[in-house]
């Protein structure tokens, strides 16, 4: 009798939901892999982990992860996660969503959760466009890029997400690409162990939608672009951490401590109750 081969990470996935919906060459699988490996290596109690996502390709990740998980409306993942975390501080609440979801329709929730320092771990899959709807430009699309709604090239200035996160008050901010899998996994582990609002941007290939209109037809083409232009500048100024066709600045930009919203809230409640 042959022994059944079991993948060491099988318990972290909802097998019945797989095959996933992601295209060939997409980086979302690498992000999911890095996330569950981080959970595995930290040996976290999965009963106490909640995975939350919004709408978009990466939004399906919450369904593939074998934790309590929720697939919210477009843009509202962080606001939903805020409710979960404040209601039950025992839970480790991780938001994994896309650049459009977190920074266009959900941008307001992002900056305010970071400002409050809600104890959430936010991972953004930045693929430079709205992939699920067929490749429209979004808040991170580079200038001049071709998308279906920038048929004459993108005239908008993109967000620098790590600068935005740092300015909004995140206590941990890092950016990696899907070729930097070990660094990405270590960053996720670090974020999961931090108290407060942490943010990791993952620059990820979307060859099927974004890449093929921008002279990078395959996942490999996009990964080669990342490899060619990536520069690791740990602890550098996130304001200068640009993403352009010529240069992608990566690294850990913020790692600091400050009281979380949850800690301040519980302290206040204790004080109010003592006075009664």
């Amino acid at each position, binding site marked *: 009798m042959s022994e059944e081969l079991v993948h060491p990470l099988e318990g972290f996935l909802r097998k019945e939901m797989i095959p996933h919906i992601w295209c060939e060459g997409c980086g979302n699988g690498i992000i999911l892999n890095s996330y569950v490996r981080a959970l595995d290596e930290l040996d976290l109690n999965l009963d106490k982990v909640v995975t939350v996502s919004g709408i978009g390709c990466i939004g399906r990740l*919450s369904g593939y992860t074998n934790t309590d*998980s929720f*697939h*919210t409306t477009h843009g509202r993942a962080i*606001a939903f996660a805020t*409710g*979960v975390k404040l*209601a039950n501080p025992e839970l480790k609440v991780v938001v994994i969503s896309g650049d459009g979801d977190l920074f266009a329709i959900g941008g307001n*929730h992002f900056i305010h959760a970071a400002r409050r320092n809600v104890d959430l771990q936010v991972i953004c899959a930045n693929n430079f466009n709205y992939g699920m709807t067929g490749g429209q430009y979004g808040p991170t699309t580079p200038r001049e890029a071709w998308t279906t709604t920038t048929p004459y090239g993108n005239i908008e200035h993109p967000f620098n997400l790590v600068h935005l996160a740092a300015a909004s008050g995140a206590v941990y901010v890092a950016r990696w690409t899907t070729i930097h899998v070990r660094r990405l996994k270590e960053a996720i582990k670090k974020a999961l162990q931090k108290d407060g609002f942490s943010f990791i941007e993952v620059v990820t290939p979307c060859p099927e939608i974004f890449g093929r209109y921008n002279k990078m037809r395959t996942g490999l083409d996009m990964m080669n672009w990342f490899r060619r232009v990536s520069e690791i500048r740990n602890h550098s100024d996130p304001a200068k951490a640009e993403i352009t066709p010529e240069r992608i600045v990566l690294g850990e930009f913020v790692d600091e401590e400050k009281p979380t919203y949850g800690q301040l809230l519980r302290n206040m409640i204790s004080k109010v109750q003592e006075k*009664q």
Partner: protein
Amino acid sequence: MKAKRGREVLTGEHFWQGDYACAEGAIAAGCRFFAGYPITPATEIAETMARRLPEVGGVYVQMEDELGSMAAVIGASYAGLKAMTATSGPGFSLMQENIGLAAMTETPCVVVDIMRGGPSTGQPTKPGQQDVMQAKWGSHGDYEIIALTPSSVQEMFDLTVEAFNLSEIYRVPVFVMADEVVAHMWERVTIPSQDKIQIATREKPKASPGEYAPFQPNKNLVPPMANFGEGYHFYATGLTHDETGHPQTSSAEAQQKLVHRLCDKIRKNAGKIIRVQKTLLDDADVAVVAYGITSRAALSAVRDARREGINAGLLRLITLWPFPETHVSELAKQADAILVPEMNYGQLVREVERAAKATEVTLLSKLGEDPHKPTEILDAIRRTHR
């Protein structure tokens, strides 16, 4: 964190504002999470919750907008707390997105809408009843909700408790639709002792984590609900899903099965949910159908009409949704005419007309001022009777 005894329910006689009574009703019902955004004329609910929730170990969070408030309420409910928000028309419009999500993911939660004049920013300090159709139809798609409408400060307390109970029993968003007058007026309120207040809590799953199907209904068509963190590792989505919670984005069967159940769990239990109050209706030729503050002017008018020899009666709607259709259609068989005073340009009157069939239904619309005066309703009764 446990509150000291007695702080959850402020048993006794009080002279309270409606918004205040609503907040106290929520706390008495076990609400321990409020996420909101300031808005006239519902701000006093947020202010009261900000002060009172920490006393009972609960969480008040002021979100960046009403989109986030409603999303946070759903998150808190999935994490196991009884959760609510309170708003007015403009905020209620923003909440519709996640009210749809709450309906789809069967989230027990309470939304209080203190109705002012609309559309848009409208008249923030003036009363209205202009959101009653939005409560039913505000989010896209087919779904059912429950909406209650208090007509006194006492009912701001009582119906907020009931709203939580219904939301827990049916796993559905429940709305407390109060007009600005009921929310802002001050009246005597009697708060019973804690053991006299009935509290319902969501049914917990009997299945083990490995066997739990998060959207498999009980005989009441309501699925038992696990909370996050209890080891069930379940998944919920705003996508059409099957009983296991898995997305079914192409199956007609899954879409029909889910939408039918989301609606039928309310429609088929409507008899148990609906509450109305009937006054002098047994022999009424003219019936007034009213709700909220308008029903109190209507009651006065009905009594005055009786003194003049007109057989008038009042059907006061306590439940707006599901619409008390049977009560109205029975009334229509008996009465010659039905009068519907509303602080809008004709909303619930359409439902009354639909249920009344051939019986004459007249709208008495009022906009932009104080609520209907009893004399205005009395005059309308006289005209209708002639």
